């Protein structure tokens, strides 16, 4: 996970790196790294925004974007909805005793 601060929408904007990236954090430092993250509402919103633009710039905002860019999003949406309706669906399994 890229630890950048501030709004960015394409990779040519340079932003200062605040922390070590997740893959560079040593295992013993993991709890303190998690505590140092910004969990305020604007921090969480910033995390969602960075994640969105990371996906967008990698798969959709390219010269020859294919249909897989949006198909992956729809597949995740199907899995997400499946997890919601699992509670109702588990009664429809083919088992002798539910």
């Amino acid at each position, binding site marked *: 996970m890229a630890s950048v601060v501030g709004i960015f929408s394409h990779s040519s904007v340079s932003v200062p790196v605040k922390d070590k990236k997740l893959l560079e954090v040593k295992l013993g430092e993991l709890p303190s790294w998690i505590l140092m993250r910004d969990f305020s509402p604007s921090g969480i919103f910033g995390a969602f925004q960075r994640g969105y633009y990371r996906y967008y710039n990698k798969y*959709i905002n390219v010269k020859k974007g294919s249909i897989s860019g*949006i198909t992956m*999003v729809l597949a995740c*949406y199907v899995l997400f*909805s499946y997890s*919601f*309706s699992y509670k*109702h669906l588990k009664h*429809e399994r083919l088992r002798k005793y539910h």
Partner: protein
Amino acid sequence: MNENLFASFIAPTILGLPAAVLIILFPPLLIPTSKYLINNRLITTQQWLIKLTSKQMMAMHNTKGRTWSLMLVSLIIFIATTNLLGLLPHSFTPTTQLSMNLAMAIPLWAGAVIMGFRSKIKNALAHFLPQGTPTPLIPMLVIIETISLLIQPMALAVRLTANITAGHLLMHLIGSATLAMSTINPPSTLIIFTILILLTILEIAVALIQAYVFTLLVSLYLHDNT
């Protein structure tokens, strides 16, 4: 069977909180905006489609009616994407909930009617009496026209809800019928499966058509009142 037939229409909740809000907010993620003239393929396709529909839809309005073009184009995009996303397996379609369709229909209809009454009150009242009616019939006809005006928002909302809900229910039923038939009488499974495929194609068409009809009617009400 009753419980799990309608279970897909229950609004999903996370620990009691409505997750339907998250699901309603999902379609805008699929429609990016851009500040450049030349964009990636997704945005280009979407902008081309939007231009096509908006030109077709707003062609019949005058200048005052065209101020509503943003509202109507975003309405048709929202209903179309929400209906199409509801065709994915296990997903929840917000437009199956009557509450949401009423919330869309009533303000739009009321806005169009009130706008008509404010600006050209004589023209707006003239809609209540069609031309060339015999004189004794006039009181009854005014009552009928008033009722038909007041029922427009209800008809808009219920039409959308009923069409989408009925389509989803039919697909559930025929799908479970194919599963049941596969053990009882295998050759008929293929027939029923063909019916399911045809129904899915119909549902895709219905999803788009319902969006179109909703928006078209709102724009008609607007045209009457501008």
